[in-house]
């Protein structure tokens, strides 16, 4: 019945304009490949560990991008997912002895369940209240773990080994590569999702839930999906962290972690994956070597200032600068083309 309105004959509009831009994906792949061989180029034990920690931070920060930037769900519950993943990894891989090749995916499953559970509890609220209920969720999980003897109570658990494909993950290069693998997996998923049906559904949910529902999008279901995926990857980040820190204790649920990742996401730009990754790398490196610059006393002050100043003067974050030429051109054309119409 819609034949006349939707002929598939005007295919010309869908063609790709040839441009130098086609080189960029190739550059991207090359850079991503170099990141893989990086620990061989810079062969320093401690530095390789720092790289693996950076990758863990990137994964966690991108889960914030997924939830806040894509789905528009302002969740501060990352620590609960991260911590759940950390404990799950220690129990599943460290204590039960299931190898990480399977174990880390089980950890991801635990994280997805926690994420969806958190979504089910908190999605009845919105905006600020959602931010605070997710935060509260984290406090509750921390309090319960602190009082649970079988998870080691306040002292946590030590003396375990996280293995991957039969090797111990206390080898920093291996830890880095496993982390990088999950990071790339997450990047691929985010990039694919953004260009597909689910990405548009998340966009619609974020921009106007009423309109989203009017075109058949079950907004709640897509928010839960975002919680699930974010939970899975945050949990993997937590699991990898236990291989990095060699212990797990209730401090993995700490609010400090949430705040520093929030700072990264805000400064990088909630909507911008490259912005977040750049800022995650820079801030992690900065914090680790702050004492070299004599700045360790000021690290948290700087984080706080970055949050305040970014929100005030650069609401889209550094990543927003990437799109700003487009935005500027757009505002110019509004001025040029906007003639009447409203009144």
């Amino acid at each position: 019945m819609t034949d006349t309105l939707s002929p598939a004959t005007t295919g010309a509009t869908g063609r790709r304009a040839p441009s130098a831009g086609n080189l960029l994906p190739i550059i991207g792949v090359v850079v991503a490949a170099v990141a893989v061989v990086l620990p061989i180029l810079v062969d320093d034990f401690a530095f390789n560990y720092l790289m693996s920690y950076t990758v863990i931070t990137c994964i966690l920060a991108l889960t914030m991008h997924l939830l806040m930037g894509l789905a528009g769900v302002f969740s501060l519950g990352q620590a609960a997912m991260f911590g759940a993943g950390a404990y799950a990894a220690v129990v599943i891989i460290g204590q039960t002895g299931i190898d990480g090749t399977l174990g880390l995916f089980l950890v991801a499953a635990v994280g997805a369940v926690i994420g969806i559970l958190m979504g089910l509890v908190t999605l009845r609220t919105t905006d600020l209240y959602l931010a605070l209920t997710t935060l509260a969720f984290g406090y509750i999980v921390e309090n319960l773990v602190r009082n649970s003897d079988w998870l080691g109570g306040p002292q946590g658990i030590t003396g375990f080994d996280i293995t991957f494909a039969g090797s111990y993950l206390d080898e920093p290069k291996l830890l880095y590569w496993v982390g990088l693998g999950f990071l790339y997996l997450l990047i691929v998923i985010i990039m694919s999702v953004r260009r597909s049906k689910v990405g548009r559904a998340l966009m619609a949910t974020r921009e106007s839930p009423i309109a989203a529902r009017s075109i058949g999008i079950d907004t709640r279901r897509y928010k839960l999906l975002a919680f699930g995926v974010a939970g899975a990857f945050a949990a993997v980040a937590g699991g990898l962290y236990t291989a990095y820190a060699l212990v797990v204790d209730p401090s993995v649920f700490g609010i400090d972690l949430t705040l520093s990742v929030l700072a990264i996401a805000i400064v990088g730009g909630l909507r911008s994956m490259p912005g977040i990754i750049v800022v995650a790398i820079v801030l992690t490196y900065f914090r680790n070597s702050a004492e070299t610059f004599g700045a360790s006393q000021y690290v948290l002050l700087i984080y706080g200032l970055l949050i305040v100043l970014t929100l005030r003067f650069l609401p889209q974050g550094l990543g927003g600068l990437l799109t700003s030429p487009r935005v500027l051109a757009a505002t110019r054309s509004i001025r040029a083309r906007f003639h009447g119409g409203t009144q």
Partner: protein
Amino acid sequence: METFVQLIAAGLVTGTIYALIAAGYAVLYTATGFVNFALGAQAMIGGYLTYVFLPELPLIVRVLLAIVVSILVSVASWAFFYRQVAEKDMLSAVIMSFGFSIVMAEFVRIIAGGIPLPAESPFGSGVQQIGILSISNHSMAVLVVGIVLFAALALVFRSRGGMSIRAMFQDKEMAETLGIPTNRVVIGLFALSGVFAAAAGILTGPILSMSPHMGTSLALIAFVGAILGGLGRISTAIIGAIMLGLLETLFAGYVSQDYRTTLVFAVFILVLIVRPAGVFGSKTKVKV
């Protein structure tokens, strides 16, 4: 019986401190829809000014200074930061206030160090025995100052000025057409919330000891209290905060000390899901 009386008194004192911050939240929220989480940090700064930074000045000067600085911080942060952001995106402004509380806490930590510092109560360390209840002078002062401030707040809001504030809550544009200078009123309200924050800091110092990050948890728990009663009205926010203090203390006294945190935040989530407008809140939708 003695235990019960003792717990009730302690709950009231804790609740009153929460309520001072909660009143600050509600004063701002009812007029602007903004929740200023930096009030906890302002309280902390008020405490440091009163007890730590300037021990050589007379007490009354220190107290006044604490109040004035808290007012200035409140008003300036609104005028130069929150307002511009809140116009576009309220949630960003709220997150910004979190950022501000980190900045203030770290600023104080760099100046005064992270170690908790003593704060000597202006009311001495005496303890009064009233029947079976023993209560410190300071605790009594907390209750008295709380009652005085809440009564003063009620008077302000019953006056003509208060009417205009309530009109603003109903409809900002309408208020402007009626000739109520909303900008000046909002600045006045931020100043008022600053007074309450400073009072909370001055009264809390001798109980908690002074430490740079003391404001963060205070701000969160007071918010839970305000939500419990209903953030949409000042009276319900205050009552909710006092209720939370009582609930927490009675739970800790009769059920469990270990799971106090779980209780507080479970109550928070439950209230938001079941009755988002608070236990005493009207059914009007609370929006942020």
